[in-house]
Structures are given as C-alpha cells and as structure tokens.
C-alpha cells in the first residue's frame, strides 16, 4: 500500500477532526481569495465606468472630488459650469465628443441626470461598450426619461410609466415637480456602472422643471407655467454640472487639460479620470493592504490549527505508528506519511476553499449587482489564486514536518514497546 493510500486511510479513521481541520483551512482560504476578488472587481468596476472617457471637466476642485460627484454620484458639485463656457470648450478642435451632465434632482432616492443624446451615441464603458436598451429608446420629446436597469428592477417601472421627479437629492422634505411628470421612454441594459442607478432626462427637461421657480421655491399656482406652455419656450440651460470629453488624439489630452485649467472666464478643472482613480487607489492602497494582511493571517491561523491538531493526535497514534513499524515501515516512511497527511489537509482545504468562493460568488453576484451596483465578474482562478494555493500547500508541508519529525523520533525510540 502506498504512503498516500495509508495517509488517506488513516485520515478516514479520524474523519470528524480531519474534516473540521480541512474546513477551517477552506474558510480561511476562501476569505483571502474573496477579499482579493472584491478588491480587484471594485477597481475594475470603477475603471470600467470611465474607460471610454478622456477627460472630465467641472468647476475647480480637487480631481478626486470632481471624479466622484460627476461620474459616481458621490457628494455634490462645488459649482456649476455656465452653458457659454461649455459651448466654447466643447468647440475645441481636439474634441471628438462631449457629454454634458446636470445633477441635482432625484426620484425616490435615485439621482436624476440631465444629459444629451451624446450619452447614447458616444458614451463608452468597459471594453468599449455603448449603452444599450433592454426596452424602449432614448428620450425624444421634452418629458421623456430613460431609466437605468436597477431603477427599473427596484421600482418596477417599464416604458410608458409616468414618474414625478423631486427637487434636491436628500430624501426628506423634498419638493415635488408634480406639475411636470415625465414618461419613461426606455430602460437601459445593466452596465455595472452608476448609470444603472439614474434616471436620465434631457437638459431641456431639467430646465423645464425649474423654469417657473423663483428664489429656489416652486411657483404659486397663478404664476406657474404649465407643462404644455413650457414646451414652446426656449429651454437652453444656463449651466451644467460637469461634462465628459472624448478626444481625437491622446496626445492632445494634456494640452486640452491645460486649456481648461487656465481658462480665464471661469475657474475650472479638467481631470484625466484614470489618473484620478489611480490617485484614489494610492490613497486607499494602505487600507486594502491591511485587509489583505488580516486575511493572510487568518490563513496562517488555519494552518496553525492544523498543526495543533496533528501534534495533539501524535500521542494517540503511537500504536498506529508501532504497527506500521512492525509490518516493515522504516522511520523515514513514518516521516513521509505525516508530511503527506499535512499536504492532504492543505490540498483538501484549498480545493474546498475554491468551491466555497465560487459558490459564494454565484450566490452573491446578483445581490452585489443590485445593492451596490458592483458587478463581480466570475472568472477562472488567476495568477494570484494559483500562487496562493501553492503557498498554502508548501507551508502546510513545512509545518507538517514538525509533527513528522516528532513521529519519526518516537518511532525510533518506541519500537514495539509502546506503553499506552
């Protein structure tokens, strides 16, 4: 009988403790892999959102602030950009396309994003994908709205439904734009970007909502302008919150950035979104490393648990060793047997860990998508996973040589005269 076979049989004899040991290694491995997976996917999700955008232009502020409020809808703008400035900067010959963004209203906790047709024709995310509709089409008339997949799923909206937008983004004491309801013209396919969580209307639509407002308050009935009359009025927006820029050539990005940053009429900032994200990762990198380190320590704790288990079982297994010696096993066979046992624990733990991880990924994927807008891509194990698996098995073999050495010594000394 091979040593491997012997080790398996021996483990089978102690299957309860063996399974628990394997399970504790599996949980620690799954934790470490999961932490790493979420870290990588969160980064990918952020990067994918801005992958098709060369620059973002907004009021002068820190690059991170601008990136977060314009694209990820975290926080609010410091200032707006006047329409005139937008037109002038959008007309630069280096510019291929611009997408205006106007924020500030909401609907049942979801942001309303005023934008233009360019959002549907030019915006790209991920690997160069454009926005696609699961039903309906882009907004065509003034009171049309396009909703993201998550809004549709959570609020149960479909095309043709009518929605009333609210003024402001805080959920309490909102004033309703109930005189001018919007009709949903289309629902977007899931993108894994913050656009899943917005209601998009045209810039003119945003302007129409506020056209009769005075001093930040809704008009009294006599002075309000009806939804129908508004359609006939000039609805050129006065300002937008920020705009996305696509350029003809990468090299012109820095010149355009300088042009915007030095723009005399208004204090503006142009950022390269990928660069701003890079800075964000540099900032949060320490926290991420700490999290990874903790998960790494959990794996080590799992392996130490295995070591404890094997060491404490050595006493009980003296008779087993003695029998093996009696049937012709040499001390070095005992040593190999013990190391093989550790490796089996680790390999079993790692395999079960991977199974746990992928099981969790499949279960959690739709929940993460819906709750956090984070798309967890399920991909086969990569370099990190394989290196980790190898490391766990090698460490187990090294740790296993400690009880193996003890067993080896015992088997030399005990011979067949074990007194139990």
């Amino acid at each position, binding site marked *: 009988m091979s040593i491997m076979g012997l080790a398996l049989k021996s483990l089978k004899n102690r299957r309860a403790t063996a399974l628990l040991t394997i399970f504790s290694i599996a949980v620690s491995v799954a934790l470490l892999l999961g932490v790493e997976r979420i870290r990588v996917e969160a980064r990918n999700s952020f990067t994918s959102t801005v*992958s098709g955008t060369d620059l973002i232009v907004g009021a002068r502020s820190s690059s991170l602030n601008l990136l977060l409020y314009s694209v990820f809808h975290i926080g609010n703008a410091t200032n707006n950009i006047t329409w005139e400035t937008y037109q002038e900067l959008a007309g*630069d010959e280096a510019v291929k396309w611009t997408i205006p963004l106007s924020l500030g209203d909401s609907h049942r906790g979801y942001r309303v994003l005023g934008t233009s047709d360019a959002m549907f024709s030019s915006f790209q995310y991920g690997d160069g994908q454009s926005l696609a509709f699961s039903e309906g089409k882009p907004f065509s008339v003034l009171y049309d709205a396009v909703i993201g997949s998550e809004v549709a799923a959570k609020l149960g909206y479909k095309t043709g439904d009518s929605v009333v937008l609210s003024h402001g983004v805080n959920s309490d004491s909102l004033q309703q734009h109930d005189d001018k309801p919007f009709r949903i013209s289309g629902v977007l396919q899931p993108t894994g970007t913050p656009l899943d969580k917005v209601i998009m209307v045209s810039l003119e639509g945003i302007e129409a909502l506020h056209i009769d407002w005075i001093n930040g308050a809704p008009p009294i009935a006599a002075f309000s302008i009806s939804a129908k009359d508004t359609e006939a009025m000039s609805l050129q927006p006065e300002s937008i919150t920020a705009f996305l820029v696509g350029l003809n050539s990468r090299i012109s990005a820095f010149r355009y950035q300088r042009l915007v940053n030095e723009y005399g009429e208004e204090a503006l900032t142009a950022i390269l979104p990928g*660069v701003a994200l890079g800075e964000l990762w540099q900032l949060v990198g320490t926290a991420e490393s700490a999290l990874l380190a903790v998960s790494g320590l959990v794996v080590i704790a799992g392996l130490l648990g295995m070591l404890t288990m094997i060491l404490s079982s050595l006493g009980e297994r003296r008779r087993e060793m003695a029998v093996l010696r009696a049937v012709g096993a040499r001390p070095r066979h005992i040593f190999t047997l013990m190391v093989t046992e550790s490796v089996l624990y680790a390999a079993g733990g790692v395999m079960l860990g991977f199974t746990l991880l992928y099981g969790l990924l499949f279960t959690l994927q739709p929940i993460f998508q819906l709750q956090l807008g984070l798309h967890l891509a399920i991909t086969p194990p990569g370099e990190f996973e394989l290196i980790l698996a190898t490391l766990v098995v090698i460490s187990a073999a090294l740790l296993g040589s400690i009880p193996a050495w003890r067993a080896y010594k015992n088997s030399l000394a005990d011979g067949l005269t074990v007194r139990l």
Partner: protein
Amino acid sequence: MKRFSPMAALAASIALSVASLNVSAESGRHADAHIHGTGQLNFAVEGNQVYLELDTPGFDILGFETLATEEQHHKLEQALEQLKQANLWAFTPAASCSLKQVKVSSSAEEHDEHESHASHDDHEDHESHDGHKEDHRGKHDDDHHDKHQEEHHGHDADHGDHKEGHHGHDADHDEHKEGHHDHDVDHEEHKESGHMDISATYVYECSNINKLTSIRTRLFETFEHSEQLKVQGITSKGQMAAVISRAKPELEL
C-alpha cells in the same frame, strides 16, 4: 514657501497666469502651485510615439530660482542643455526608441526676453499685453465654431511658444500679485521674480512600441535637488497615475 495640498497642486498643475487673458481685470487671477521637490511629468503613448512633458520648479533643477549673477545665468543655460540630452529618459531597450524632438524653456528666460523688448516700468506696458490678449479673446466670443476652431489651430501650431509665453507672464504675474495685495489697483514696478519654472517636452519614436514596458529617468541623478515627479500617463491600456522619485526612478507601464 507656501505649501499647497497635493490635490491643489494637481488641480492647478501646469502653467497658469491667465490674468492677461482676461477681459475683466476682476476675475481670473490664478496662482500656480509651486512645490519644491515635486515636478510634474505627463506622458502619452500614441502610434509609435512617446510624448513627454516635464514641468518642474527651477529649484529642483538648479538649486536656486532667481538669476542674480552671471554664474547663475550660465548654470541655467547648462541645465537646459542637460535637459535636452536624449539619455535623460531611458525606455525598454527592446522597444528601440530614439529622440525625435526636444524643447526646453525656463520662465526666467522668457521673463528676460520680455524685459528686453518692452520696458515694463509702468502699468501701461503691462496693459498692452492685456490688450493684445483681449483682441484675441474677442474673436473667440464674436465668431462661431468654425472661426473658433481656426483660432485654436493657430494655438496648436505654435503651442510650445505660447506656453513659454505664459510662463513669462507667470513670472510677471507673481510680482503683480504682491502689488495687488498692498494696493488694490496699482501695479508696482517690476522686481526680480521669486519663482522660476523649467519645462521641457520630448517626442520619442519607437520602432517596436509594443515592447515598451518601462520608462526610466536620469533626472534625479543629473539634478541633485530634484526629488520626485508626479506622473500622469496615457497608454493604449488606459490612463495611469504614479509617482517616480529618487528612490524609484522607473515607471512601469
């Protein structure tokens, strides 16, 4: 030396001083971040070209920023000459890149030039600068996009010079700022500027650009006062942010 936060530094990263670009004197005063020890490097990889833009405080290159003596002028010229060397940047050898174009400038240089062809001893002269820019600006406003774009074409063609020009103003502006603080309107006489920036642009061509995986600089070895560069980069893989420093003068793409 005022310390700005790194974010502010990024926001106002390159040259500024658009004061002279303004129609109204009230708005549009800018002040560039100027942090000794921290320069800015922009690079873009497109086609078979690598385009690099370096912008650093004069102190990082020279160890001083005011040109008082003949020796200091000489040192500046020497430094600018060193910045022009092709081996300041080293690329992955397999990519076989070679320097095609280089342009270096310092704000002090430009400042001197300005001084030489226009006697700036009163406010009037400075105004004339503004006047010139106003015209330029006026065209932007009056005309529609076509015209507007032509204008920008002009910008593009001699962009380098424009930039240097701005730097020149930059120097001017700093002094004026002091003036503004004390006397709201009056511009004081020109004093020697407190700050100087040095910038350089490089275009390298690589015959095997797919092999390009790293950029290494000898800047920190060459100039003992330089400490680090904040990097903004654009490659075919996307945009990236990094910091290269004396301890780690290499950039992984």
